[in-house]
């Protein structure tokens, strides 16, 4: 196995894992029964999926002869910082709009 | 100096920047820069006329990039004339504005200066996309100016004006996309070169693109059925803005003239685009504008409708000349711009003098007891209704003579003559109502504002000497145009000949580059 093949294999792995998690998150969004449960899929799985794709592309581009590609890390960094805040904001909206439906703390509303 | 052609754009732009940069320095600073910017344009305009008058076409390649790749400004007789005309109405309007209009809201000075820059850019550019950009500059400035001082009437008219023009801008871009997509160039002169060799299968799309362009210009010029917005907008806004707007419709006329003659006049399959519909619409525009003026209940509305009439007249003159326009139309264009601009300023001063009745065409408890205003009204009414001996008469004679025995010439004659008669009668009625009819007792008069929406009254000192000078300058326009009729007529005929020759323009812009490198795509 040449170095190139190894890198291709690694890239493929990350790409597949990334795609899978992105899909997983969206299935969660589509399938889960209420807003708060739906929130879990996208915030975690989709973010992780994109992160995985980013690593894949880093690996891929780094072996294309352009030197180490670090730019993509910025995207990952950004996503990991913002995803919780988005979730927080969305939850607040849902709390205001929908109230607590399932099993919420009695005094949270 | 070789930078002459760009000065009319750079000067107001620079003045606007200085006004904005010093926006905390107070009103006196802003006004000083504002007026200085305007006044500086006077010698520059005269210089441009002098430069272009000789018949040379000066091409200014921005960034040093040659046409058709870079943007060029083209200074020929026609563009120099339009720039000078802009200056001629802008400077008095600016003077009028500094009597108080300019304090009715924010950023008046910068908007006004940038509007001038936009106008001059539109007149000078030789690139059709750059024309779009300058259209947007002048439009955005005009949006702000139109609603300057706010009030329901202005905002209502402004909303209509803005939304229509935004749609027009989108259409402009559609046309440009199709033109570039078929011709592969944006330079007017280059379009003239490319068009004749276009394969026949491309004709339909190119024709449609040009038709869209024509529609855009017709909207700006307020050609029926795209004219209804104009009277409301122009009558609602402040006088100095309306005065400047007198040239706004002419931008549409100019653009149509420039593009149709230089751009798509070069190939038979696009040269007949304005036939056969332009003339009927132009005549209908004259009729509608005249009816609107007769129906008007305010002087400003009368004048605004006269602007519509002037659009119809200009397009009729163009249609009567197979899509072009000769010196007659250009002379009339200069005349009508000066006169309507002056009339807006006058309406404002009359309104201020008459108290609560403003410029309503009803008797008033306080008719303006001012020989100056009455005389100004006389001069402008004579000029506007094409009565001898002023420029309106000369212009009308020129147009009548230039279209006679063309197809539809008789219809143009009838339209112009009837509209002239009605205008004369209604201005006589207006004079009677505004100056002569006195209401029995001021306190018995109900405060009867005219039906045309609520007023946005500019609280400024209209009696000031500045507004008198502004008015005087503009009112002098028509008599001056009469006295100088011979040289002006020579100039505009030469301008028209230069435009219609097309080849000098193309040669000046493209130089000796007969074989412009083109890439076949895709």
């Amino acid at each position, binding site marked *: 196995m040449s170095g190139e093949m190894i890198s291709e294999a690694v890239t493929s792995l990350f790409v597949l894992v990334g795609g899978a998690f992105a899909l997983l998150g969206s299935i969660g969004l589509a399938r*889960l029964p209420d807003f*708060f449960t739906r929130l879990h899929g996208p915030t975690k799985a989709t973010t992780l999926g994109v992160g995985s794709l980013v690593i894949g592309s880093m690996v891929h581009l780094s072996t294309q002869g352009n030197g180490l590609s*670090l730019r993509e890390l*910025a995207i990952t960094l950004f996503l990991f910082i913002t995803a919780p805040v988005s979730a927080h904001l969305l939850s607040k909206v849902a709390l205001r709009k929908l109230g607590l439906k399932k099993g919420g703390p009695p005094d949270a509303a | 100096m070789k930078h002459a052609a760009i000065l009319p754009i750079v000067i107001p732009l620079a003045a606007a920047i200085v006004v904005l940069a010093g926006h905390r320095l107070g009103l006196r600073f802003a006004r000083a820069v504002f007026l200085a910017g305007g006044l500086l344009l006077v010698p520059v305009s005269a210089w441009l006329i002098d430069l272009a008058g000789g018949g040379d076409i000066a091409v200014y390649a921005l960034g040093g990039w040659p046409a058709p790749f870079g943007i060029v400004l083209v200074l020929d007789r026609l563009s120099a004339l339009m720039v000078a005309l802009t200056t001629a109405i802008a400077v008095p309007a600016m003077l009028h504005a500094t009597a108080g209009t300019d304090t009715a809201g924010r950023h008046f000075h910068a908007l006004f200066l940038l509007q001038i820059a936009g106008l001059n850019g539109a007149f000078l550019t030789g690139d059709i996309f750059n024309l779009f950009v300058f259209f947007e500059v002048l439009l955005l400035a005009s949006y702000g100016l139109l609603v300057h001082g706010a009030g329901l009437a202005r905002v209502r008219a402004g909303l209509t004006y803005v939304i229509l023009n935004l749609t027009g801008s989108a259409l402009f871009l559609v046309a440009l996309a199709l033109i570039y997509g078929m011709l592969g160039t944006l330079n007017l002169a280059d379009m003239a070169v490319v068009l004749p060799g276009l394969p026949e299968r491309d004709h339909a799309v190119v024709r449609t693109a040009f038709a869209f362009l024509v529609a855009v210009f017709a909207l700006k010029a307020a050609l029926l059925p795209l004219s209804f917005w104009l009277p409301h907008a122009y009558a609602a806004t402040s006088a100095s803005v309306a005065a400047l707007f007198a040239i706004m419709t002419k931008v549409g006329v100019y653009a149509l003239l420039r593009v149709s003659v230089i751009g798509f006049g070069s190939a038979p399959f696009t040269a007949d685009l304005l036939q056969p519909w332009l003339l009927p619409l132009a005549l209908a525009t004259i009729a509608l504008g005249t009816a609107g003026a007769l129906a008007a209940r305010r002087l400003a509305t009368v004048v605004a409708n006269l602007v519509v009439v002037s659009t119809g007249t200009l397009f009729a003159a163009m249609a009567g000349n197979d899509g072009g326009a000769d010196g007659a139309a250009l002379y009339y264009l200069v005349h009508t711009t000066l006169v309507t601009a002056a009339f807006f300023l006058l309406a404002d001063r009359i309104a201020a003098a008459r108290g609560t009745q403003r410029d309503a065409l009803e008797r008033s408890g306080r008719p303006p007891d001012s020989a100056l205003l009455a005389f100004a009204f006389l001069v402008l009414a004579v000029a506007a209704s094409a009565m001898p001996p002023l420029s309106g008469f000369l212009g009308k004679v020129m147009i009548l003579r230039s279209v006679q025995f063309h197809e539809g010439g008789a219809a143009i004659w009838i339209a112009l003559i009837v509209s002239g008669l009605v205008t004369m009668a209604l201005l006589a009625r207006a004079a009677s109502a505004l100056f002569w009819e006195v209401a029995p007792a001021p306190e018995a008069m109900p405060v009867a504002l005219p039906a045309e929406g609520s007023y946005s009254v500019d609280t400024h000192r209209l009696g000031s000497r500045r507004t008198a000078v502004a008015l005087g300058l503009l009112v002098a326009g028509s008599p001056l145009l009469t006295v100088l009729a011979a040289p002006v007529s020579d100039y505009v005929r030469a301008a028209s000949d230069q435009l219609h020759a097309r080849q000098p323009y193309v040669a000046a812009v493209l130089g000796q580059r007969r074989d412009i490198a083109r890439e076949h795509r895709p």
Partner: protein
Amino acid sequence: MTLFYRLLPQPILSLVILALWLGLAGSVSVGQVLLGTVLGIVLPRLTRSFWPDPPRLARPGTAARLVLTVFFDIVVANGQVAKRVLGPLDRLHPRFVEVPLDLEDDFIATILGGIVTMTPGTVSVDIDRERRLLLVHALDVEDPEALIRTIKARYEAPLKEVFQC
């Protein structure tokens, strides 16, 4: 030390900016390092008024360990989410959990909230400033107390240590 802090009031931020710059530029030439350093010095100072009281990193080592923990949790436990998302929905036991906070600083509490959200099974819904508690939504939880204990021990305690608060 004071001179250092006067020059670099937020050293971590400056470092992050430098790293980000080099990452973006895709090069570690002298010129880029210089430019990144300048930005790292200038930008935090320019924006200091927006972040007047940045917490100071006291234990870089603990911080690194915490980062690794979180990363590990994210990767390993995402599988559980997959199982729950794809599995039968009627077995889910979603519910809200209130986690009392020992952290005083909002910024650090926000970091905790972020960690809680990114780790599987839980999403931070809100930080209640008055009652100093973190409202968490858990996708499938049998024992809320266990969850609270885990969060506090695994993430909050190290955070407190890292920032010495």
